[in-house]
């Protein structure tokens, strides 16, 4: 009952974020309608990072505890991360078309996210190349952690070497967010709603994994 209520609340909040992004929030000064993609692009990029961090956490947990379920959880988190990564790339690309004139021009940010997608695509390629479940779990967990320690290099090193045109990221050097009250309200509730949606998606996947594992046990 409670779960159903929570699901309904999530549905309501996500819809009102969409409505708010288009009709409630004012435009930033001097910028066109296309800036409204901010309310979708930043949260998806945020969830990408969170999901991959959670995936790396589960991978580490698997290596410590050697319980197969953690590996499947890591896979689930990375799947969601890859999905949101693609969404962040697409929304960012739309913004780049309107603001820079082309969908793709190898700006350092675009390069970073592309490499990130490449890394996790390689992660799933590795998973499909190993048959035994425990071996697959160990190898992909190691690769996941290895990939995760190199990600800071893409976030900090590549933009330092090449100039980026990307607007200041959420956590910028001045530590300020330049937005007016209504924009900030929509933006923060969008972040919160996307985070809740991520938790809900992950919980669904974890439940499915639990049922699958139980089924397998019953078969044996």
């Amino acid at each position, binding site marked *: 009952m409670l779960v159903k209520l929570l699901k309904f609340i999530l549905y309501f909040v996500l819809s009102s974020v969409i409505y708010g992004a288009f009709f409630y929030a004012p435009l930033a000064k001097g910028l066109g309608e296309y800036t409204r993609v901010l309310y979708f692009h930043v949260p998806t990029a945020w969830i990408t990072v969170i999901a991959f961090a959670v995936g790396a956490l589960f991978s580490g947990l698997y290596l410590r505890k050697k319980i197969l379920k953690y590996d499947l959880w890591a896979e689930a988190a990375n799947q969601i991360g890859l999905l949101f990564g693609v969404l962040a790339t697409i929304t960012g690309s739309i913004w780049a078309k309107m603001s820079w004139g082309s969908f793709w021009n190898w700006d350092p940010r675009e390069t970073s996210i592309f490499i990130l997608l490449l890394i996790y695509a390689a992660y799933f390629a*590795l998973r499909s190349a190993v*048959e035994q479940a*425990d071996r697959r779990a160990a190898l992909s*967990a190691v690769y996941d*952690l290895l990939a995760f320690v190199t990600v800071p*290099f893409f976030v900090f090193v*590549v933009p330092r070497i090449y100039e980026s045109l990307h607007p200041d990221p959420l956590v910028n050097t001045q530590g300020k967010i330049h937005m007016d009250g209504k924009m900030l309200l929509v933006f923060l509730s969008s972040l919160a709603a996307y985070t809740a949606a991520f938790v809900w998606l992950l919980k669904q996947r974890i439940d499915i994994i639990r049922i699958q594992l139980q089924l397998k046990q019953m078969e044996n």
Partner: protein
Amino acid sequence: MYKAWLVFRKDIQQEFKTRYALNAIFLFAIVTLTAVSFSIGAFSAGPEILSALLWIILFFSSMSGLAHIFVREEETHTADTLKLVTTSSSVFLGKLLFNIILLFSVELLVVPLFIGVMNFVVYDGLVFVLSLVFGSFGLAGGGTIVAAIISKSNTKGALFTVLAFPILLPVIVSGISAAKKAATNAPFVSATSELQALFAFAVVIITAGILLFDFIWNE
């Protein structure tokens, strides 16, 4: 540490019996260098393109040879014996040392050839050499741990490049940038961030490799 040295000497001896990795990596480097030189000639490309080409040649030649060190242990079924006689970290360090030496010897051959054939003028030798040294540590560190991963998987050949490329991309990006600066006579200070990045990457990837290798080796 002494055991790592023994593993390294064993691998050297085994390598000189067949010279598989040596032949693969050297011939690959020569063939790509020939193809590049053949197609663009000696004077048509500027330092930007040449430094990118140099790192592409180095990266893909290393991809052709670095994986062999662990794949060989699995193919000849000697991994289990090695597990019995020594610890996992000494295996990793020994094999890392082997790959570093392998990369250095390839660079010793290819880089002078590249400079000669492609008319690549290096103004700042120190930046250039340091970027190659740090870059090799990074490439060998990442290559060795990914080699350990794929040696346990079912498909070994193509997977190595697929897994290694995205992880090693910071090395290629910083290496190309450092080579470009060395070839355009930029002041030394301007290349420090690239050298720092290469050095930091090598330290991080080798540390992560040592820590994570145990989970693969004793899996």
